């Protein structure tokens, strides 16, 4: 799909945000508000993983470490330092960028399965550290006592509706920012290193540096997803940094599609709907999720988002050739 230009993407983001705000300001539906908050968290995380895996060809099995790190760093900063929420968010972004730089320097040099497994190893290291650092993190009981949410700029995030608006705002801003990254020259370079790293290197591109930058950018957005989850549950738990979070991310982008920018967003919507819907009726939700992934993987052979896009473009091409035929016949 052709990428949108900067001004078009900006306009689109503004319109969607306006519509979302209009919808959310009129609703009193708590389930919808919770859904939007959780969607923002998961979709930002999944899109950031797609930036790495889909656009950069770096399939990380450990991306969840930044999600967990963001949640803990943010919640701890709020609990211990008594700063305002924006300051804690910026601190979490800087913290996770630093962590990503350290982990990335080692990982981005590795290819394919080696990259995947070393990221997984780092994730388990972070998870084990969270469990072991009892006095700081509360160990396996999680970070207790709630995340304080002092009002800032007239926003009170203890209020569910305002947290929901804030999450929607962050979702759109992050999606816009990530879209900008992938459609910029940097994004093109990243895709080039994915498709043919040797060729990119011959053209004078410092491949590892590009990959490291992408790794750090993806980590920063993953941490924003994590801190939204911390705000939602008012705490942080070691599960947030466990490998299953990374697995869920991969599941989501497979479900939604890796070749379209909004595929992971679609995947997140489907995943959450599926989870919420299925777990209302049965405890055999694993069976349902497994069946869905089988249908998608074996039936569609690509994500739902990819499928829809391919279908639409095939149809418009068919229409175009039809029209050409008609014109030819008429002339």
């Amino acid at each position, binding site marked *: 799909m052709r990428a949108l230009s900067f001004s078009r993407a900006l306009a689109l983001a503004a319109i969607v945000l306006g519509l979302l705000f209009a919808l959310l300001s009129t609703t009193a539906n708590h389930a919808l508000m919770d859904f939007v908050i959780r969607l923002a968290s998961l979709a930002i995380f999944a899109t950031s993983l797609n930036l790495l895996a889909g656009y950069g060809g770096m399939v990380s099995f450990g991306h969840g470490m930044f999600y967990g790190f963001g949640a803990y760093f943010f919640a701890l900063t709020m609990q211990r330092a008594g700063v305002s929420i924006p300051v804690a968010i910026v601190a979490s972004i800087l913290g996770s960028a630093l962590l990503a730089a350290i982990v990335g320097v080692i990982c981005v040099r590795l290819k394919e399965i080696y990259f995947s497994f070393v990221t997984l190893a780092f994730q388990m290291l972070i998870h084990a550290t969270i469990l072991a650092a009892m006095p700081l993190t509360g160990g*396996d*009981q999680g970070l207790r006592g709630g995340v304080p949410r002092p009002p800032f700029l007239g926003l009170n995030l203890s209020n569910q509706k305002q947290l929901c608006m804030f999450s929607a705002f962050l979702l759109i801003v992050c999606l816009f920012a990530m879209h900008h990254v992938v459609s910029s020259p940097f994004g093109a370079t990243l895709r080039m290193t994915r498709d043919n790293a040797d060729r990119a290197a011959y053209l004078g591109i410092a491949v590892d540096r590009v990959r490291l930058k992408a790794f750090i950018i993806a980590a920063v957005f993953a941490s924003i997803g994590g801190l939204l989850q911390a705000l939602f549950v*008012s705490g942080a738990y070691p599960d947030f940094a466990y490998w299953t979070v990374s697995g869920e991310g991969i599941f989501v982008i497979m479900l939604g599609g890796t070749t379209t920018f909004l595929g992971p967003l679609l995947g997140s919507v489907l995943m959450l709907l599926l989870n919420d819907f299925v*777990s209302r009726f049965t405890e055999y939700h694993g069976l349902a999720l497994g069946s869905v992934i089988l249908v998608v993987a074996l039936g569609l052979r690509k994500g739902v988002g990819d499928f829809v896009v391919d279908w639409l473009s095939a149809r418009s091409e068919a229409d175009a050739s039809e029209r050409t035929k008609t014109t030819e016949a008429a002339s």
Partner: protein
Amino acid sequence: MTDNDSRIGRRAALVLGGGAAAMLAAPWVARAQARTIKIGMPTILSGRVATLGISSRNAVMMEMEKVNAAGGLAGRPVEMIFRDSKAQPQEAARVVRELVNTDGCEIIIDGEASSGSFAVQEVARDLKMLTIHTCSETSSLSADPKLRIPNAFRCVRQGVHDSVAGAAYAAKIAKEKGLKKWATCSPDYAYGRDTTAEFVGYLKQFAPDVEIVSESWPKLAQPDYTETLTKLLQANPQAVYSCIWGGDLTAFIDQGNLYGVFSKTPFFAVNMADYTVLTAVKNLPQGIHSGNRYIKTFPMTPQNAAWGDAYREKFKEYPTNWSWQNAAAVAFLAAAAKKANSTDTAKMSEALMGLTIDSPFGMNGKITMRAEDQTIVDYAIGWGTTIPKEPYMPNVTPGDWKQIVELETAWKKSKGYI
């Protein structure tokens, strides 16, 4: 259109149709206010601990039938809604919010263990519905004043109570038999580490001669305990303490039997006397010392035995420790609604403070919801030794609640909670 096109069309239609159906069926239904009172219960219904979650749900269903037969809560019939939390704290938080906000539940019975219960506590702080925790044994949940809220209670045994009662019992035997060299072997996570440290601390307080010669920390769900067992044998202790539980304990006993560990050395396993373990072990050794989890023979009353049998009759298996806690929680809710003559959160919470109920699970037929920290005391707590067949633990020495409370208070002071 070609054949190929039409096939894609059908597939796409299926996908779109499925998506639309999911959207329409999404649980965003209007909250209905009715005379029926809905009570929501998140618990662990899938994964490794599902047996315990299911035994919690069973107990609640069984007891709620009785409540409904007797006219419900303050005249309102009860409808229970159960949800699986998958043992994930974030899912527990979400499910509770959904139960309250979407399904219209007015009370939550929280069947979550460890971290999940803390997540539910935060939701209860936020949404202010009456919440009663029924499975989390971590003491800080009710002991830490920073976590406490007026609308949340806990109807669960506690790690620190078990440690005091267990250490007092063990110290007596240690003195009688001259057991000085002890080894510990407990799971490597917060519960295992904390409970063991507390037990050892109290044991040394009661029997100052005791020394710990070996410590092992096997992982949760470890399939092979060879390493732990050989370490134990090498240390050659006079007695062993362990707070391994559930399927792990079953595996540990089965493997330890091969080395004859339990015939030589007195073994103190706080979580042994739980039917899920007692009935699953292949050759249950004679004479293992254990705390009571749920056992029909303690308290040795007709009410307790009748309750255990009724549960077994209905669900074809014996109740677990989680079962009695949930059954007691339902009794507390019923008693509080009766006392307050209302199902209002504030009124019921006030009624629950310091409430004493008659219960088959009480040490003297009664359990009290202590007002100062909203958690139960005077429940049946004791230690005994196992025999290889029913009733598995025929004689249980009751713990001393006066001593337990005294040392619990000292423990709270040492933690800065009071």
